């Protein structure tokens, strides 16, 4: 794997050579090995990663997870103030998710809730470097054509090169590269989670953006709603020092938040790792007396979690990855309460991080 990665990096300027090289060095890859195909895959990925946020569209999609089926209306627009998106549930209780001004507001039957975004930037899925990185851990292959919500689509199969991550099939709309159907696939090939548009209209004119009043209601919500947003991790005292002995191959730290829970001011470290496709969160909190602890494996839907408690610290690893991956992650995790004055440190995937971080 590492040699493939190295080759991959060196060959970055010659994209068409990339996949054949990987095919030659990786057992089990399923591409046809034609340079033309590799170049085409890359083009599709670049379009998908590059352009969707600029689109104006509205549509309806279904979300399926196990026996759970949900139908949602989606409107996506590009306004002067930036990208916004609205999701309305069409089945079950009325719920709405509004993403605007980088804040996420959920209107639920119980009331309205705003998650003040802590995001500074999107994940560093920058092109083309991160496609190289993705290709170390996933094999990409085009699998024919299909129609989704009346639109012609190309099927892109993303097959993991090891058992540490799930596979993915993406249906990409032909003109825009937009993901119009997704299937998360387990190691046995069975779908774990699916999303598919049943209706999709691209709009020439941006749909009416959320009104100022609505944005104010959403964004203002409550001062300090939910988690206190923190612009730099230095603003909240570190919870713990931690290190990862050997994180699952390919997962690199992409984000580190530290925030306080509104309820009790409980500081939480939130470190996000990604292999470019799958995401794993590491949460670290002090154990609060009287609160239940999370230890060992849990699963909700397609997500797996692993809790670990020691030395007065609760760590929880969560991600849309196989149980073995969160387990391995947790096993390699060492942590101790942070000294009062020092800053938490992260020991990461030293070599790989250095190699691929922008």
């Amino acid at each position, binding site marked *: 794997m590492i040699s493939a990665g190295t080759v991959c990096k060196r060959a970055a300027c010659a994209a068409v050579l990339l996949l054949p090289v990987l095919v030659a060095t990786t057992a089990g890859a399923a591409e046809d090995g034609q340079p033309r195909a590799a170049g085409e895959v890359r083009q599709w990925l670049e379009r998908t990663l590059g352009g969707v946020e600029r689109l104006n569209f509205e549509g309806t999609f279904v979300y399926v997870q196990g026996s759970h089926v949900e139908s949602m209306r989606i409107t996506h627009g590009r306004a002067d103030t930036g990208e916004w998106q609205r999701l309305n549930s069409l089945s079950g209780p009325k719920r709405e998710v509004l993403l605007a001004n980088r804040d996420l507001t959920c209107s639920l039957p119980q009331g309205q809730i705003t998650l003040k975004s802590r995001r500074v930037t999107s994940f560093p899925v920058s092109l083309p470097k991160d496609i190289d990185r993705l290709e170390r851990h996933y094999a990409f292959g085009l699998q024919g054509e299909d129609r989704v919500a009346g639109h012609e689509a190309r099927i892109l199969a993303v097959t993991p090169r090891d058992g540490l991550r799930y596979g993915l099939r993406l249906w990409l709309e032909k003109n825009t590269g937009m993901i119009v159907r997704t299937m998360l696939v387990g190691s046995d090939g069975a779908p774990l989670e699916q*999303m598919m548009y049943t209706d999709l209209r691209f709009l020439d004119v941006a749909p009416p953006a959320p009104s100022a009043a609505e944005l104010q209601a959403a964004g203002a919500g409550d001062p300090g709603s939910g988690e206190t947003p923190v612009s730099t991790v230095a603003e909240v005292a570190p919870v713990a020092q931690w290190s990862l002995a050997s994180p699952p191959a390919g997962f690199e730290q992409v984000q580190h938040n530290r925030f306080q829970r509104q309820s009790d001011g409980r500081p939480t470290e939130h470190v996000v790792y990604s292999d470019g496709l799958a995401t794993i969160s590491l949460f670290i909190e002090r154990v609060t007396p009287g609160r239940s602890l999370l230890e060992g494996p849990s699963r909700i839907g397609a997500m797996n979690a692993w809790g670990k408690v020691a030395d007065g610290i609760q760590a929880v690893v969560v991600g849309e990855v196989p149980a073995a991956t969160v387990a391995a992650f947790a096993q390699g995790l060492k942590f101790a309460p942070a000294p009062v004055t020092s800053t938490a440190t992260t020991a990461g995937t030293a070599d790989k991080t250095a190699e691929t971080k922008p």
Partner: protein
Amino acid sequence: MTDKTAEQLSALTDGELDSQELDLLVRRLERDEELAARWTRYHLIGEAMRNNLPEQLPFDLTARVSAAIAEEAPVVAPAVATRGWKRPVVGLALAASIAAAALIGLPPQQALQPEAGAPVAVQTPEKLPGAAAGQVAQVDWERNARLNEFLMSHNESATMNQMSGVIPYARMVGYEEER
């Protein structure tokens, strides 16, 4: 709560209480909020175990969620109307998890689906009479709520990955619903 009361409660939940006992217990339930909360919990768990929950639960979920959030303890609180609820999120996570747990009504062992081989206390409604059993249920409930907090935060981060498309948003909303 005495063992006897717990047994009665369990019997009530299962519809096995004779009319005299029923009358007494119902009157106690009216006065004793803790008992009422426990009964609601048993009832939910029982219905969920039997896969019987209607889409809309026949009592004031909003009030229960609000009350639970106010107390920041994921227990089923008695139905006391709370107006002007605006306590984001401890939040979204807690509200979502309680609503999920309630709407879904899944007992923790179903909602969490631990991996095979994991030590899990499997409680059936028939085996819930003792106070100890009630505690197990409550601990698992809290555990579920806590896990959901983390899941919500995780999904919020996952939305930043362009390759995920709308799935993380769908997951967030999905937590509100039957799972």
